[in-house]
């Protein structure tokens, strides 16, 4: 579904140029949920923007379903890291969520229905008529998640989507994401800082290095499904993977394999 080959990106030019991406190679199969982790400022958002066609890659290429990404591909949704600026302040919350649905063949009633359903899923059924600037930070973030989920894209890119909500809501949203993914066969790329989260929701966890970002680890998460907040997190594989991802993010070399 998604195939990234030797992707590089440099901000600016001359002596103040900043090498953000230093050659990324990544393949994501259809229906897969890949988590991306890496130190702050390494280039995760840059990678995401390149995939979304919002940034012209400096080198290499991004191919989605066989076609090279030149402009924003179809059937894509993004939850931006800067969620508050990505909501339109002149529209109500419900309108913000239902706006992209105009691209789907839906009449007005269906759009409203879908939007309300998505809002209910993120626990915001009461805020539909409000404006984004009347919401708390976490609520705004949930609106932007609801907007992406309601759209049911083939490819969903999420940039730290659960960073501003409380622990309980965060778990609910993680489970919601997993559920929706299963129902609609979405491919998801999720950037997160929470290592537990990356292992819990991901089919794979990709670890990026400091700038210029390169892939330093790509771990398959072999946890028995369906996942569950309590039992999964106690599973020994989970604990092992979590430690390994943590090590990779910190740049600590793997411990020598235990002697047999």
């Amino acid at each position, binding site marked *: 579904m998604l195939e990234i080959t030797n992707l590089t990106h440099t901000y600016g030019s001359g002596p103040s140029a900043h090498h953000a991406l230093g050659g990324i190679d990544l393949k994501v199969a259809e229906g897969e949920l890949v988590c991306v982790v890496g130190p702050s400022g390494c280039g995760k958002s840059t990678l995401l923007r390149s995939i979304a066609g919002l940034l012209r890659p400096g080198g290499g290429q991004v191919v989605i379903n066989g076609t090279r990404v030149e402009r924003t591909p179809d059937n894509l949704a993004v939850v931006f890291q800067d969620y508050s600026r990505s909501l*339109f302040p002149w529209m109500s919350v419900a309108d913000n969520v239902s706006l992209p649905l105009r*691209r789907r063949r839906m009449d007005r009633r269906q759009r409203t229905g879908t939007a309300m359903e998505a809002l209910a899923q993120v626990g915001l059924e009461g805020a539909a008529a409000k*404006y984004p600037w009347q919401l708390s930070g976490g609520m705004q973030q949930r609106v932007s998640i609801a907007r992406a989920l309601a759209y049911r894209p083939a490819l969903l890119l999420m940039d730290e989507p659960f960073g501003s909500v409380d622990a309980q809501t965060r778990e609910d949203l993680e489970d919601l994401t997993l559920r929706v993914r299963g129902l609609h066969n979405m491919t998801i790329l999720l950037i997160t800082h929470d290592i537990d989260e990356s292992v819990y929701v991901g089919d794979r966890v990709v670890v990026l290095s400091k700038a210029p970002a390169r892939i330093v680890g790509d771990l398959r998460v072999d946890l028995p499904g369906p996942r569950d907040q309590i039992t999964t997190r106690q599973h020994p594989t989970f604990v092992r993977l979590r430690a390994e991802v943590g090590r990779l993010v910190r740049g600590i070399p793997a411990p020598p394999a235990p002697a047999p």
Partner: protein
Amino acid sequence: MSGALRAAARLWPVPVALVLWELAARSAEALTFPPPSQIAASMHTMWLTGPPERLWLTDAALANIPVSIGRLLLGWVLAGIAGVTLGVALGRSPLLFRFVDPLVQFARAIPPPMLLAFFLALFAIGTRMQVSFIAFGIVWPVLINASEGARHVDRQHLDTARVFGLSGRERLFRVILPSAMPKIFAGLRVSLSLALILMVLSELVGSVDGIGFQLLDSQRSYDLPGVWASIVVLGVLGYVLNSAFLAAERRVLSWHRSAKQTT
């Protein structure tokens, strides 16, 4: 009722200014600056001494004021439509901008009085010429503001629109226009006052009616209270139009006001 009282109380500077003016004018005794009372008397005779069944409006009032307002509004609406359309196009298309912007800057710096000859040649004298002259003269603030507003849309908003695959139309009507709206309104407001100026100008040549015509007429016959009467009418008209405009703006831009309010 208390609302009306409060509104009246807010207008206190008006009587104060009037009294000061009256005193200053009486003591200066300059013919050019008649005291407000004399201007008011002149306004009364010019416009309000008609038959009661016509609300005391005189022929002069009926012949001049409504046509002027009509021209002004028509010109303003035309300028608004043209300015927003062209401005947004210029703001969103760098190529078009490169081609047309010098012409826009060129055209807007030409003093309208110098353009009268051109408009007289293009349209024969009459409402068509006057309205297009007004529209041409006042379109620039709307156009420039609309193009600035359309160019400076928050990039995050545009990116959002793009990733959700909004069509060009939706992007225009749901993202670019709303976010350019505050600037467009600022431009429309400047244009509305300019429209009054251009209206007067357009009535100075070859006209047979209108407030500008009457202003010129008073000037020609050295009737300075009459000149002032017309100026006052222009001011009042401007005030009323501007208040109506602000009321409309408050409705349309309520999100903007609330989103930007501080406590």
